[in-house]
């Protein structure tokens, strides 16, 4: 792993100023370390030679100044590093969220909920992960959210401790070597030979243990997973009388894990042993060597003392880097993930041939011709050579089982997904321009932190209070909103927790009324409501459909009574169902 990712400097400008300040602080610290050693050596040697406190007054008075300066640099260095970390985190976070938002609907792995035969697990039938954390898109959303908050926080340690230590590890040993070399060449030689061995051994031992350690962490993760799995399954285990027996399994598994881990650690900790040995043994060698030279009168006492004081300082920052390395890796990994995500190119804006392409939904047919959509990692296309023409004012109901491609069809119409093949009548319109003509009611509407009114206003940020209230009334939401503690200003709670599924659906319908767009897209508008709520929403949807082009996807055949045309979708293929419009389910049977 690279100690400093060049992409980090590119992406976060704050990191560059920080780096300069850190190098300056490191230089200052190195100078102060040398000064402190020189003053100490001078004082001790002076006292040895019979000088009293008065004769050494200057030295003894300078020492606290150096100490204070060191403390000040340590304080200012860490404070500025933490400030820089805050700025870098902010820059990365903003870029990350904006970038993922750009990627989100187009990338495919955040979009489809109706994939595979897994029914409605997690309820993410809608597009764009609007179905909550358990949906297929949810894992990624969750990962990015964690990355943007807690993950990046781990950069504090990286900036405040690891990088400054890295700078010191480059500067101090060289400075010490220069000073020691000037005083005693042989000692400098001992240090010069052993010093490079430290990083070499760090790398060697690291390489040797990394594979084993990684396997160990993997195992650890799996064992943690095993414990969680067993705990989550406790009710099931109890029903089958297996709960008590599992206690023994947990003990055995954890013990086996301990033995395996300790075996790895015995090797992994060898790295620490070797590094410790190198550093202390080198200091011991220097001490003995300089002591013997001193004995023979080859070097003055003060010089010998200075060499002895400085020798450990050459190794200290290198070892500290090693100690900080693991602690800071979490932050580096998080930053690396962020930079990786930032490297994923955002879908380019669709080029517009002519901004006034005629896409007047009120008067022109919206058409798909031979559209095929594939999601990465799936062998079968989610939509295969689908053709559909939506005449102005026409109501089309698309029926089909879960996983047939219903939501993908809406994703194409919403331009969340670009077709791999085929053409659409709106491909040349800029995406934002096209979406302005659409009102969308997803299966699981997402409610944002904020008031009820804010949530309705999402459809039209400019809308006044009157317009919001009118939309709520049309959507049949005015009644329950009035009953909320603060009416339209009531916060909806996290993910709309304060509201029932039916009420959330009505907020989404209110958005659609406020949007007042010519093309209306509805995804399973009543699937997850209980019977009473569904009946009410059904009537509201009827009102909303009046005078608009409509595509409604559902597996509930009773909607076909309200359709001008019924289209069946099955395994990604569309087929027209003749003669059922307005009559209900009779002819829909396969």
């Amino acid at each position, binding site marked *: 792993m690279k100690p400093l990712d060049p992409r980090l400097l590119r992406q976060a400008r704050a990191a560059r100023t920080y780096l300069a300040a850190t190098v300056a602080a490191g230089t200052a610290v190195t100078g102060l370390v040398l000064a402190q050693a020189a003053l100490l050596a001078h004082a001790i040697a002076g006292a*040895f030679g019979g000088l009293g406190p008065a004769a050494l007054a200057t030295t*003894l008075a300078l020492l606290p100044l*150096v100490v204070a300066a060191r403390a000040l640099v340590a304080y200012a260095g860490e404070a500025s590093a933490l400030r820089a970390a805050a700025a870098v985190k902010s820059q990365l976070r903003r870029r990350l969220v904006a970038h993922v938002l750009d990627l989100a609907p187009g990338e495919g792995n955040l979009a489809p909920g109706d994939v595979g035969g897994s029914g409605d697990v997690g309820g993410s039938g809608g597009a764009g992960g609007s179905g909550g954390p358990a949906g297929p898109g949810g894992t990624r959303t969750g990962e990015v959210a964690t990355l943007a908050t807690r993950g990046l926080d781990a950069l504090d340690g990286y900036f*405040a401790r690891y990088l400054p230590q890295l700078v010191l590890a480059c500067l101090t040993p060289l400075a010490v070597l220069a000073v020691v070399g000037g005083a005693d060449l042989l000692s400098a030689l001992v240090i010069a030979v052993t010093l490079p061995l430290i990083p070499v051994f760090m790398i060697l031992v690291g390489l040797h243990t990394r594979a084993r350690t990684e396997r160990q962490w993997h195992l650890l993760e799996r064992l943690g997973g095993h414990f969680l799995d067993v705990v989550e399954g406790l009710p*099931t285990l109890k029903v089958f009388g297996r709960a008590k027996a599992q206690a023994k399994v947990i003990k055995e598994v954890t013990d086996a894990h301990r033995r395996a881990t300790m075996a790895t650690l015995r090797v992994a900790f060898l790295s620490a042993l070797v590094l410790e040995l190198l550093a202390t043994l080198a200091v011991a060698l220097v001490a003995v060597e300089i002591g013997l030279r001193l004995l023979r009168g080859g070097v003055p006492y003060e010089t010998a003392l200075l060499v002895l004081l400085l020798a450990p300082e050459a190794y200290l920052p290198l070892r500290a880097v090693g100690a900080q390395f693991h602690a800071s890796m979490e932050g580096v990994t998080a930053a690396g993930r962020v930079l990786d995500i930032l490297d994923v190119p955002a879908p380019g804006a669709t080029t517009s041939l002519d901004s006034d392409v005629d896409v007047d939904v009120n008067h022109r047919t919206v058409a798909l011709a031979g559209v095929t959509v594939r999601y990465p990692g799936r062998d079968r296309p989610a939509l295969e050579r689908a053709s559909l023409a939506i005449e102005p004012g026409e109501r089309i109901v698309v029926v089909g089982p879960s996983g047939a491609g219903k939501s993908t069809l809406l994703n194409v119409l919403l331009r969340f997904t670009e077709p791999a093949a085929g053409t659409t009548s709106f491909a040349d319109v800029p995406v934002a321009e096209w979406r302005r003509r659409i009102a969308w009611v997803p299966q699981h509407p997402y409610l944002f932190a904020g008031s009820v009114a804010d949530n309705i206003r999402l459809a039209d940020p400019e809308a006044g209070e009157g317009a919001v209230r009118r939309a709520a009334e049309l959507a049949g939401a005015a009644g329950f909103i009035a009953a909320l503690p603060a009416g339209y200003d009531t916060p909806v709670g996290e993910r709309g927790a304060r509201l029932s599924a039916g009420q959330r659906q009505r907020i989404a319908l209110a958005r659609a009324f406020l949007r007042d767009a010519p093309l209306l897209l509805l995804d399973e508008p009543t699937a997850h409501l209980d019977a009473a709520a569904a009946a009410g929403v059904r009537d509201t949807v009827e009102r909303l459909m009046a005078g608009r082009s409509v595509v409604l996807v559902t597996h509930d055949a009773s909607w076909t009574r309200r359709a001008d045309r019924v289209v069946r979708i099955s395994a990604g293929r569309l087929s027209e169902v003749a003669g059922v419009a307005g009559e209900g389910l009779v002819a829909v049977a396969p």
Partner: protein
Amino acid sequence: MTLAAVRRRRRDPLWRLLLFARPLRGRLVAAVLAGAATTAAGTGLLAVSGYLIARAAEHPNVTALAIAVVAVRALGIGRGAFRYAERLAAHDVAFRVLADVRVRIYRRLAGLAPAGLRSFRSGDLLNRLVSDVDATQDLFVRGIVPPLVAALAGGGTVALCAFLLAPAAGALAAGLLAAGVVVPWLSARLTRRAGRRTAKARGALATHVVDTLSGAAELHAFGAEDIALARLYEADAELTAQARRNAAVQALGAGLGSLTAGVTVWGVLLLGVWSVAGGGLGRVPLAAMVLAALAAFEAVGQLPAAATQLAETRAAAGRVTAVLDAADPVREPARPLPPPEPPVSVRLRGARARYSPSDPWALDGVDLDLAPGRRVALVGTSGAGKSTVAAVLLRFLDLDAGTATLNGADLSAYAADDVRRVIGGCPQDPHVFDTTIRENLRLARPAAGDDSLRAAAAGARLLPWIESLPLGWDTPVGAHGAALSGGERQRLALARALLADPALLILDEPTAHLDPETRDALLADLLAATQGRAVLLITHDLTGLDAVDEIAVMDRGRIVERGTHADLLRAGGPYAALQRRQAGRLPVNGRRNVHV
């Protein structure tokens, strides 16, 4: 220390975790001694080296230095060896305690589940508990060993120093205490206060991040991306501004630590120089003393991190011990009756139950009879109390009033495990374990042979699918059965219940989370497979109920209507109303026997 203070300390969650390690105290002492020896070797190396060259400066005979030379080399090697021993010993203790805590917490959770764990229903909380348990291993390596090592090694250095020059020893002791106790305490306090200030801004930011990403589809569809990002940036700016303000506070620890160490060494030097001039201290030991003081601060270097670690682990330990102390939701009889023999008859009379005294009644006077060979369906809207009936029958929850009898004897007079040997089945949201299909099935009857497994799988109409898989019975199902579809998961749970073959089979919402086609097919198979068994089928789906012997309709903790499918439809009461409502949502293929 007063008795009350001792008791208080014993209640402290960290203290209780420490007590778990009591059988391991020998290993813990070894780890601490090795750690102290590591630090002492480092200090000793510099002190002896200082002595060595100071003595050498007096140009004695080379033999006068021999011992010092050997000592310096030995200390140079010893330090690494001691460090190695310390880390191994500390990690070993940590893992052993982890195993112990895991088993203890598991035993307690097994007693509590599922009724006592309702507050953990959200997977996040359970997840946190599991990582809390894992966090206890850090307590020893990073929380307990470093302070003890610092006390021993620091104390040793001070004692050595006192032997040379008492005032200098006093200065060193004061400096070590300041750097090892006062500065960590102060900086932990300040950092905590700073953390509290940012908590709100942090929460607001997290909300905006999750909102922007989870609601991305809506934001794009309504062209509101920029508005959402602007709000997010605002929250981010607030947090960043606070973090910048807090930086000064957080850096204080580093500055003060460096200052304390430097000032102490200066003080020791000053006293030393004074005493050498006054003749109170020899000129050779001066170097050893100052160098020892310089090296002694390594001992306390780990303490700020240890303070933070202890604070973090205390919170985790508190949550762990809270679970260990939770009261049992079910009273086990002191002298249980002999296990009930099948066939079993169960009778509820005036049964009232709730999950906690502050909750409303989940069951509010329920009468219900379950007899051998009869299939009873319990229907009603969600929250009507259907699953609570199952919880009572499975001895997951005690009645607060009324009676529940099994073969004529009070249900609570049997050991809970014995009851579950005859009353079992498929709880709501059955858990599929992260192992193979075979192991998931065999859970119900570990001794079951392949023929029984195949028969159970066939009963749940799972056999052809299992045999079509490349790995067959050994196919891993993934965490939470992620590799299976919803229908396959429910069928696996049904097969498991059939394999267990309890005298009374409870099936709680076996068709939940399935789409209509899958739901209808599974229900038909399930009704076919349970013909002639005693079954309690809990469902809010009313399809195919003409096949059961009796239907009981629940509403707000009571049974409001009972009878056969035909009777209830004729009666035109709550059941008929439920049927009518459900008829509003017909499946695409219309395969549904609605008699209205």
